[in-house]
């Protein structure tokens, strides 16, 4: 084994800088995915004539195709078409957010459909306004059950962010690449990068599993 501890130590600060970017991307992307996914789910459950079908098609399309291509479509096609030039970082946030919104929308829908039909009927019988039925009765019952799935999606997103390297986002993998190019030693930066991912995602997934058990008792 040809491991250079000094190089490992030197690479670390740079890698941690990159990790920070990765974490930011994940948090912002997840926030977008959670919000947008809820919108998608509600539109589909409400069965609005044309819109619900369009959302269905969009969700199936995005879910079944590679995230990388979607990143390219947004970066090279969408932004020029709208005549705006967001940074690679924000492109990443948008791409991750939309892609994962299609996953979270399915999770939300499962949660919404799990709410007993009697709750809808009671709300109707009491003549509650539409908005209030959602915010006061349905969502408070649907969302908690869905939280573990949402947590897992955030962890998955975290692990997928390095592909944003393709449009120049300077995350942990990009830094590892940099370091490798400078020092001509690849083993330490890449291995450390991998370990950093593990260090964040493994404890997180344990937490989500615990959340799953707690939510299972609701």
């Amino acid at each position, binding site marked *: 084994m040809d491991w250079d501890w000094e190089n490992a130590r030197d690479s670390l600060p740079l890698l941690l800088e990159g990790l920070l970017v990765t974490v930011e991307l994940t948090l912002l992307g997840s926030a977008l995915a959670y919000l947008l996914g809820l919108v998608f789910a509600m539109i589909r459950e409400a069965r609005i004539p044309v819109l619900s079908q369009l959302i269905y098609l969009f969700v199936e399309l995005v879910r079944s195709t590679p995230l990388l291509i979607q990143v390219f479509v947004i970066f090279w096609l969408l932004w020029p078409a709208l005549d705006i030039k967001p940074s690679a970082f924000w492109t990443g946030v948008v791409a991750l957010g939309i892609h994962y919104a299609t996953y979270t929308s399915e999770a939300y829908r499962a949660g919404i459909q799990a709410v007993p039909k009697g709750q809808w009927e009671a709300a109707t019988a009491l003549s*509650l306004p539409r908005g209030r039925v959602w915010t*006061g009765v349905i969502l408070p019952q649907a969302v908690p059950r869905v939280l573990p799935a949402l947590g897992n999606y955030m962890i998955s997103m975290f692990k997928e962010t390095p592909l944003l390297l393709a449009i120049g986002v300077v995350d942990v993998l990009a830094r590892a690449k940099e370091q490798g190019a400078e020092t001509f030693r690849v083993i330490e930066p890449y291995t450390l990068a991998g370990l950093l991912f593990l260090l964040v995602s493994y404890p997180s997934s344990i937490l989500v599993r615990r959340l799953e058990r707690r939510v299972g008792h609701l």
Partner: protein
Amino acid sequence: MIRFDGVVKKFGDHVVLRELDFTVSPGEFVTLIGPSGSGKTTILRLLMTLERVNDGRIYVDGECLTHTSKGDKTVPANEKHLREMRKRIGMVFQQFNLFPNMNVLQNITEAPVRSLGLSKGEAEARAIDLLDMVGLSDKAKAHPSQLSGGQQQRVAIARALAMRPEVLLLDEVTSALDPELVAGVLRVLKEIATTTDITFLCVTHEMQFARDVSDRVMMFDQGQVIEDAAPEKLFTEPEHPRTREFLHAVLDRA
């Protein structure tokens, strides 16, 4: 108060109600009895606008529930009209359907505040009065999951009454309760029936209760009213053979 005019209701190919006609006068307590599948619950659900009619009209207090006029045409009612009409009708369900994410008081005040526009204070005052009436004043801050089935159903009754409905629909409200809890709920219902002028439409298997409290009993079979009489008459001298059959089967079990 309530009038069904030629109402037809189908689920797929299965016709549940065939050209049903009947009326209920204001303040009457009418009980619907009959075998399952005869359409009794469907009638309640149509009144509560949980289902739509396939044909025919339903009138509540002279106004048409199911249809509105647009110019000189009659069209099925839109959501806005239904929402307005709904406020005058209340329903208590077999499964109570209390909102688990709210406590008892919040369950009762939710609709008055959100639908009728009452202030929180007014709604709470009304709620406390109603809790008194159903005998649960000490449970205002309790959570539905902490209550027994009978208590939950009484809260559900209070919740429906908080809207001050003109019509109250009771859908087998004691069928999901342990036998020992049934009496408490029936007692509350009897008191409400006798002290208010709400029009009641009740589907139940509790024949004794029906005899006690109803002004009229309607026997249903296959989507039609086959007999309609005061309880003393219907229970002691049923005219229709089907009614006799049904009562025999049900009452002999007791």
